[in-house]
């Protein structure tokens, strides 16, 4: 049974949500509307002329097998980034939560990477894995492994995933850590008295209680991996080698800002918007059912 409380009157709620509506309208609805409008045209770069092509831009994109292939690349990339940023974050949060002394120091250190901008993170990781002067690639070379992400697509994907997930671990850590602190001690103590070991308690009590946080982070991380990882990819691989790290959002950039093809770029933003919208609906419809608040 859901409990509903109904307030009377409409102007106070309207007033209270007005700022949010205004912000959404200016920064989301207006640009999104513009993108949809522009996706129906092929303009020249300088805006001197523009031709109405209807759904021609979408036809052009969906008829391109490389564009279709980048959906697959994006799926692999997003899943990997989400997993690689959430699992270590949860592990670290659990560990930090168990600490009695010095947890503040660990917490601070673990949150630090979040302050690093994606493009800078990209350069850092690129430097470590540089095929010529990189520290990590040098050690790998000593171990007999020839690291070459400029030609090996799998290694390039691994590198951009790690670089994208790294800073994100901090963000996720913060949420998991806060959620862990909110788990009632009494429940855990009761389980402990019943003889449940730490990992048993974790799987059966803590993890289910964390599910709202996990679900929230899942949604947020997928959105992150779709939209905000562009800087990392741009600095590390530029979408290469071949097309192995060309995700959808990188293609939006490269068609719009390198190719000056604003029509195609807008059409891609619209497609991306629809994809992420659908994905979020799916998550709320199916995954949220397993979440206990």
């Amino acid at each position, binding site marked *: 049974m859901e409990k509903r409380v109904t307030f009377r009157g409409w102007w106070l709620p309207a007033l209270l949500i007005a700022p949010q509506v205004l912000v959404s309208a200016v920064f989301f609805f207006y640009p999104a509307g513009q993108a949809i409008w522009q996706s129906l045209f092929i303009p020249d770069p300088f805006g001197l002329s523009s*031709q109405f092509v209807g759904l021609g831009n979408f036809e052009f994109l969906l008829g391109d097998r490389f564009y279709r292939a980048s959906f697959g690349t994006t799926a692999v990339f997003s899943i990997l980034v989400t997993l690689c940023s959430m699992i270590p974050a949860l592990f670290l949060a659990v560990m930090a939560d168990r600490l009695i002394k010095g947890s503040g120091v660990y917490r601070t250190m673990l949150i630090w990477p979040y302050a690093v901008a994606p493009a800078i993170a990209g350069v850092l990781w690129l430097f470590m894995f540089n095929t*010529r002067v990189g520290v990590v690639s040098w050690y790998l070379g000593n171990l007999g492994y020839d690291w070459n992400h400029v030609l090996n697509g799998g290694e390039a994907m691994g590198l951009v995933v790690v670089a994208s997930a790294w800073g994100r671990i901090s963000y996720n850590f913060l949420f998991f850590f806060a959620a862990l602190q909110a788990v009632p001690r009494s429940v855990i103590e009761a389980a402990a008295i019943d003889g449940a070991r730490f990992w048993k308690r974790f799987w059966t009590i803590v993890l289910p209680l964390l599910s709202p946080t996990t679900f929230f982070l899942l949604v947020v991380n997928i959105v992150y991996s779709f939209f905000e990882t562009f800087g990392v990819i741009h600095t590390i691989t*530029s979408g290469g080698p071949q097309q192995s790290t060309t995700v959808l959002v990188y293609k939006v950039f490269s068609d719009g800002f390198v190719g000056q093809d604003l029509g195609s770029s807008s059409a891609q933003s619209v497609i991306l918007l629809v994809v992420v919208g659908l994905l979020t609906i799916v998550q709320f419809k199916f995954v949220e059912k397993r979440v206990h608040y």
Partner: protein
Amino acid sequence: MKRSLLGALAVSTMLSPVAAMAQTEVQFWHAFTGRLGELVAAQVEEFNASQSDYVVVQSHKGNYSETLNAGIAAFRAGEQPHILMVFEVGTATMMAAGGAVRPAYEVMAQSGGALDQDAYIGAVKGYYTSTEGDMLSLPFNASTPVLWVNRDAMAAAGVDPDTDLSTWQNVDAALTALKAGGEECPLVTAWQSWIHLENFSAYHDVPFATQDNGFAGLDTELALNGEAQVAHLTAMGQWAQDGKFIYTGRRNEGGANFRAGDCALFTESSAGYAGISSEAEFDFDVRPLPYWEGLGNAPQNTIIGGASLWVMEGHEDDEYMGAGAFLNYLSSGDVQAKWHQDTGYLPITGEAGEITRAAGFYEANPGTDIAVIQMTANEPTANSKGLRLGSFDQIRGIIDEELEGIWAGDKTAQEAMDSAKERGDALLRRFEAANR
């Protein structure tokens, strides 16, 4: 153009509140940082000091692509600069934008410059002239690919450093000898599409694209999957598999390897001179770019890379006078000669080359004239005048991807270039549609 006028006013007042009112301001956006940025600033300062009617205000707007983007975005907002630096691959984009640019030759002539278009080096000028033979932008920095040789590395691997490397056949033999002599990086390259496809095609006098490489019309199609190109890329693909050619990345990443002494041979722009001469702790040589003996019409001439200056529409008449005066100053013999000697870029006029020769610069810096000789050896043909393709920055990206397929051994040269043509042509058709 009221809106853009207001915009221009707004920008000029915003950017330099201290400029004297009597002087007309000319905005100049460029893409140079570091040493090159300092040299540009020095040129601007010298021009400003040389007269009192105009003040040129130079601003750095990021790398080549970013500068072009900034210029385009500013034009859409009506706040464009008077002079915009555009790299050579953006040429077709600018030429197609008739309403956004004003031909450089017009502006320069208006300001009293006796513009003699024949004074410019043919292969440099050709890249930026319209089909009617008018120079639409002023070539600013132009370079061409050459072969850099690490003499010490050659000797260490037991290969005679003076061995003839003028043909790829000879280079092939040298690479085998280098590899056998224990060299781990016999050959490395920068700007693979520019050197091994665009210049390769011009040098062997085979088309890179139909319609005279795009000069004759927007309905051009790529022709880079021709026999000559495929033969070269097949050989390079084999070298990559044998460890004789090391791939380091799409841009000039290989420069770091070469300058550190890690590689024996390096195909790179002649403008690499500044960096190599200051960093290399080994004996090096500049050689002409190799060609395949018996393939096409080689050696024809190589083409340029670099940027030119475009004058943008939507400003006041007296501001155009200032822009013209500045461009005339930049193209004068002494300024050009100094620029050529300081940077390693090509002199854009024959006069600048003569001044440099007369000053004894080439004797003091052997090899610095190789690029000039290589570019001017023959009168350019329809295949070696340059390239004029829309969306070319992005097409280069496609070519890079396909080349990586060859180097990784995933594709044959023919498959890769067929695919590059198919994908590139799709972009050319869109560019044609956008500029119809």
